[in-house]
């Protein structure tokens, strides 16, 4: 684990899609280390806030020493972060936790709901770099809130919106269900017999969406062990000392999101007990 405490510097602030901010931070030790899906604890200095805010890197680029964070404003911490601009310092602790397991050669479906898409630019790039076929299923409330498909070069991007303003009217989980129901809609590797026609599913999004995804997978007899999810729970320290980020473990007890997660296999979680939570 590489832990860097020297601050990074914001080198770019942009609006990747409606209602979201993307900060590009220059911090070579953070950009160099890590696996897509790992997270960083960002220090916020908003009045009356205490805790750092955990964010998965959207992407990292070791060559330039840069990494990106995509987020929306949901509370005082994210509001403070959204006010950072080019030249400002940002202290980040990480990379922390476990990222997605990207190994293997099976085709992959990346399922993102809302800001869950924020983790996927780096994930998809890494999957493509491993020669894997990737379908990205992205859901948002409305077309303007979709991260543009151009952020996923070489992937097959399909979208859903709650209001039908782009793609399927409905959710990203609908898209998965439809594809699993009719695999002929998928590119050839998904339908071939190599690897037994199996696929990997990687997902990030609000807990109710993850729960719906798990339910869909069960309906389609997809083993939960072939699904990886990025958990989102309230978090204190990010390093395993406060024990605050517990998620219910399948079979009893708890998984610490910061240590065993945030990316875990779908069969590790007791989805009936998994609570959605407030995030500030």
């Amino acid at each position, binding site marked *: 684990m590489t832990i860097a405490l020297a601050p990074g510097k914001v080198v770019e602030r942009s609006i990747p899609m409606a209602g979201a901010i993307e900060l590009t931070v220059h911090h070579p030790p953070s950009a160099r280390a890590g696996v897509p899906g790992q997270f960083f604890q960002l220090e916020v200095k908003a009045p009356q806030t*205490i*805790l750092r805010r955990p964010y998965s890197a959207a992407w990292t680029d070791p060559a330039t020493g840069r990494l990106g964070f995509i987020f929306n404003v949901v509370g005082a911490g994210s509001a403070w972060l959204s006010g950072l601009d080019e030249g400002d310092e940002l202290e980040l602790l990480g990379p922390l936790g476990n990222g997605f397991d990207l190994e293997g050669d099976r085709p992959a479906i990346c399922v993102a709901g809302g800001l869950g898409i924020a983790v996927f630019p780096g994930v998809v790039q890494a999957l493509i770099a491993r020669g894997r076929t990737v379908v990205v299923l992205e859901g948002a409330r409305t077309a303007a809130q979709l991260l543009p498909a151009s952020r996923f070069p070489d992937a097959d991007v399909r979208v859903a919106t709650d209001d039908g303003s782009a793609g399927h009217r409905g959710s990203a989980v609908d898209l998965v269900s439809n594809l699993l129901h009719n695999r002929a809609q998928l590119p050839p590797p998904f339908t071939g017999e190599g690897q037994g026609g199996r696929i990997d599913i990687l997902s990030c999004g609000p807990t109710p969406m993850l729960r719906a995804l798990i339910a869909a997978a069960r309906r389609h007899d997809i083993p939960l062990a072939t699904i990886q999810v990025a958990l989102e729970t*309230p978090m204190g320290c990010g*390093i395993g000392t406060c*024990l*605050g*980020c517990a998620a*219910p473990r399948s079979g009893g007890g*708890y998984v610490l999101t910061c240590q065993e997660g945030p990316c875990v296999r779908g069969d590790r979680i007791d989805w009936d007990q998994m609570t959605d939570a*407030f995030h500030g």
Partner: protein
Amino acid sequence: MADLTVDLGRGLRLRSPIMVASGTFGYGFDAPQVDHGSLGAIVSKGTTLRAREGNAPIRIAETPSGMLNAIGLQNPGVDHVVRAYAPQWATWDLPVIVNVAGDSVDEYVAVARRLNGVEGVAGLELNISCPNVESGLQFGVDPTLAAEVTRAVRAATALPLIVKLTPNVTDIVAIARAVEDAGADAVSAINTYVGMAIDVRRRRPMISRQSGGLSGPAIKPLALHAVWQVAAAVHIPVIGVGGIMTPADALEFLLAGAAAVQLGTVNYVRPQAAAEILEGITGYLALHDLPDVRALPIRSASVLTHV
């Protein structure tokens, strides 16, 4: 350079007045960013006789200048601590004090006995102040019960014994005096305040156990007042805990009569805090030409009889 050592009694000497508070530092293995050299001691997570899973999520919530937690004493049990952790502690040049929790006098005693004589265990901190388990506060809010459990543990161990007090009482001084009389070598003041927060959008408590323990700068003035009162009432060292984030915060507690301080919530935010605070205390002693931390309390030795 000024003398930074602290004597907590029964041979427990710290090289620095900065400790890390129970529950904020695990068992000392999870925060490689923290410079152990600045610390006087580590206090472990609350440890019970058998492993505990802890409370169902949601366990924490941020509140103005503070945070609520209701972890519920998730810990691997004392046997695991003795087998897996203590041998590693024994190789450190930093004392580790095990925070001991339980549901009954018998459980406290059993844990204390199991830890007695274990190499790597430098002392015990008796947790009679956890607000987040069914019977956690039972012993801490009643002077008679507080004394009873302290006396029983005292008889079961030769280790230095610190008792961690809860502020969720009418008269913390009465509890402090009771545990002193029962044989405590020192007291930690304070554990968290019971509080709550409600998720207005979802119309439910933020924490699934409804209430939790409030920590952080929000409670610092309250903790400081508790330390001020207790320090004048007992003859044993008082360890100040509650919302310390900066060198000035730590100095306030030492000026109020604390012999040492514990850092808690700040460990989640600024791993460099212990080093910064120790540097701040060292600079303050030099600036005021004070020989050691024992010279810091602003009230005279006739008031603070342990100094």
